[in-house]
């Protein structure tokens, strides 16, 4: 199906099913119950799941396949956002051309940055990409935000190309030559896909449950599925095999008379374009682009997502992105009052003790939990969530010993699916 092997087609179908039914799956608790705060089925968070999923899928094409650890991928995310914003400002609120420009612009920058950075490997490559991303951040923050528009201070560039600290925003005076400058009631227009507004949503109440179906989520989800499909094709293509060869032994590849440079550059550009696409989608969901999207912490985040889910596997990065975004939104909401209600069944002294122990790990301290989980994954489970799932699965099948031996070596035989 779709030119995929049977296993991959099955995986793709499962992912399609899960993303399409996500508003139901992520909303398992009724509104009135105390567990409702663990529901993740609201549009804003679901959109972030899929958008960061795209970002991580793209990063995985570079890091998972070639082993080049880029610490500056957020630069492309930012470039994608700015490009989409300019498309909204200049042409109109349709998201399709905006995403197109995001991908093209981030691709161009990726060619430039990749060409220079890929001349080095290992930690040098990481530092070079980091340097480029931090330069982009600094430029977007200060230089590109200065007025380039002349003395009247009213024009399009009155806050420069990037808008500096406040970020790039829509204004009523933007030209938008193909769309309307303002809606009929004088508000800013909303990004839309041929009339379907990204912000609109319908709600469905079933008993105590409320399910929200947002256009923005489904649009991003479809884009993510296309991106995921493409990444499966890349993983299974001869090109993907070449990238794996680069990871396992670049020297041997050189000796066979092949030049790995074009392949790594292609992988870098593809993953940069994925990041740009994710950035463009972010701007489409919420028309705003700021320099902090390029800061190195954002680059670090996508590394965390990919490793947490499982680098080099198909579905891993998406799972990792989902896990981190879920933790960020849900874990950080829990406060000590909620903890006290949970542990109210314990005797008073013990209750306070338990709450005091758990408290540093939740709420504002969720980064601590993230750091600990991340360390545990790197130390004990280098294959991430996917490998963990596989181990548990094989434990149930009673073949734990056999697969442990097999997963000791991380190389994957050709044609074998590492994600399964």
């Amino acid at each position: 199906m779709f030119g995929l092997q049977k296993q991959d087609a099955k995986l793709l179908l499962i992912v399609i099913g899960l993303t399409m039914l996500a508003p139901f799956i992520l909303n398992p608790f009724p509104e009135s119950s105390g567990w409702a705060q663990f529901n993740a089925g609201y549009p804003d968070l679901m959109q972030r799941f899929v958008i960061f999923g795209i970002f991580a899928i793209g990063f995985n094409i570079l890091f998972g396949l070639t082993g080049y650890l880029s610490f500056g991928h957020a630069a492309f995310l930012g470039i994608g956002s700015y490009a989409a914003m300019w498309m909204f400002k200049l042409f109109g609120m349709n998201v399709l051309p905006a995403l197109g420009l995001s991908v093209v612009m981030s691709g161009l920058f990726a060619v430039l940055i990749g060409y220079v950075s890929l001349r080095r490997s290992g930690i040098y490559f990481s530092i070079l990409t980091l340097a480029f991303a931090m330069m982009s951040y600094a430029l977007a923050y200060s230089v590109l935000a200065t007025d380039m528009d002349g003395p009247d201070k009213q024009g399009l560039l009155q806050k420069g190309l990037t808008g500096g600290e406040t970020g790039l925003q829509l204004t009523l005076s933007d030209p938008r030559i193909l769309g309307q400058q303002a809606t009929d009631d004088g508000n800013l227009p909303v990004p839309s896909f041929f009339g379907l507004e990204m912000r609109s949503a319908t709600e469905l109440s079933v008993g105590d449950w409320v399910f929200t179906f947002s256009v923005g989520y489904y649009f991003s989800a479809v884009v993510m599925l296309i991106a995921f499909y493409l990444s499966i094709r890349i993983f299974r293509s001869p090109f993907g095999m070449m990238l794996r060869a680069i990871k396992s032994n670049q020297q041997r590849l050189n000796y066979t008379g092949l030049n790995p440079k074009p392949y790594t550059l292609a992988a870098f550009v593809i993953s940069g374009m994925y990041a740009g696409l994710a950035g463009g989608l972010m701007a489409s969901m919420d028309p705003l682009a700021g320099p902090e999207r390029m800061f190195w912490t954002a680059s670090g985040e996508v590394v965390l997502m990919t490793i947490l889910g499982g680098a080099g596997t198909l579905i891993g990065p998406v799972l990792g992105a989902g896990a981190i975004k879920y933790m960020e939104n849900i874990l950080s909401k829990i406060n000590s009052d909620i903890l006290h209600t949970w542990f109210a069944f314990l005797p008073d002294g013990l209750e306070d003790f338990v709450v005091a122990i758990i408290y540093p790990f939740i709420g504002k301290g969720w980064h601590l939990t993230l750091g600990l989980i991340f360390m545990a994954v790197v130390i004990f489970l280098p294959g991430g969530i996917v490998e963990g799932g596989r181990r548990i699965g094989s434990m149930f099948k009673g073949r734990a010993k056999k697969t442990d031996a097999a997963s000791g070596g991380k190389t994957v035989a050709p044609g074998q699916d590492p994600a399964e």
Partner: protein
Amino acid sequence: MDWFILQLLNGLDKGSAYALIALGLTLIFGTLGVVNFAHGALFMIGAFCAVTLSRLLSLSHQVVDETRTDFLGNPLKVDVPYAYDIFGETMGAAIIDWAVPLSILFAIPVMILIGVVMERGLIKHFYKRPHADQILVTFGLAIVLQEVIKYYYGANPIPTPAPSAFTGSFDFGAILGFEPGSIIYPYWRIIYFGFAAVIIGAVFAFLQFTTFGMVVRAGMADRETVGLLGINIDKRFTIMFGLAAAVAGLAGVMYTPINSPNYHMGMDFLVLSFVVVVVGGMGSLPGAVLAGFLLGILESFASMREVIDIIPGINQVIIYLVAIIILLTRPRGLMGRKGVMED
């Protein structure tokens, strides 16, 4: 000419911090072959050692002062630090005032302990893993350390002043024969530079002139052979890790009066320090020090108004720009050796 000296001096204190962190990073990389992304966190913990000690010293209890009354007519309660009780009033006040320099004594054992625990507990298991894994696990550790500090000390910067004897500024202009007041430089920054120079000198002397240092240098060159000679090189490398942590911690302790410590100061410095290490050449100690001062001074010159007017924003990007140029023209950095990190 006075502007030149002023910018040079301004670059020295930041350069000192870069050089000290980069020196520790290089020590760890050169001995253990580990890329330590948690080194910035060690710098930050050092700074918080100073915060902790100054808080400990100024712990106080309330004493009722019968001779004075508050506005309601009740006897006034005065906070008296325990230090006053133990050392007497003048001595106690001096000790509280000198909390930051005293923290050096406090930070050295703490940092060495943290370093040794970190190496034995975590890093040890990553020698055989790829560099990417080492980067990732230390990155995770850095997040954890940072969050722990944030939990106990809050997210806001904590002002930690230098001893009052050093709060003023030094007028270099008058001494060097320029207009008085043309080159004004805070005392503490002079001290910071001097302190960094002493530490760097001590590390080099330790490696160069002691038997321990000689063995460590031999181990850096060829670990296996040294091991075969019956020397327990692992133990010495662990001590070197503790030492590198102490260097980073001391850099942090002394930096507190310059910039109030906050929980993410380590990461801010780490990113730049890595650039410094790479520019200096992975594994080269003199390279790290040289590149640290060089980039600190360059950054200072690039932040001059005259330069920014010509090339806007250059102060923000100069370090990265220099790093890119150097890496592309001199692949091993300024003083890198052959065969280090080239696979």
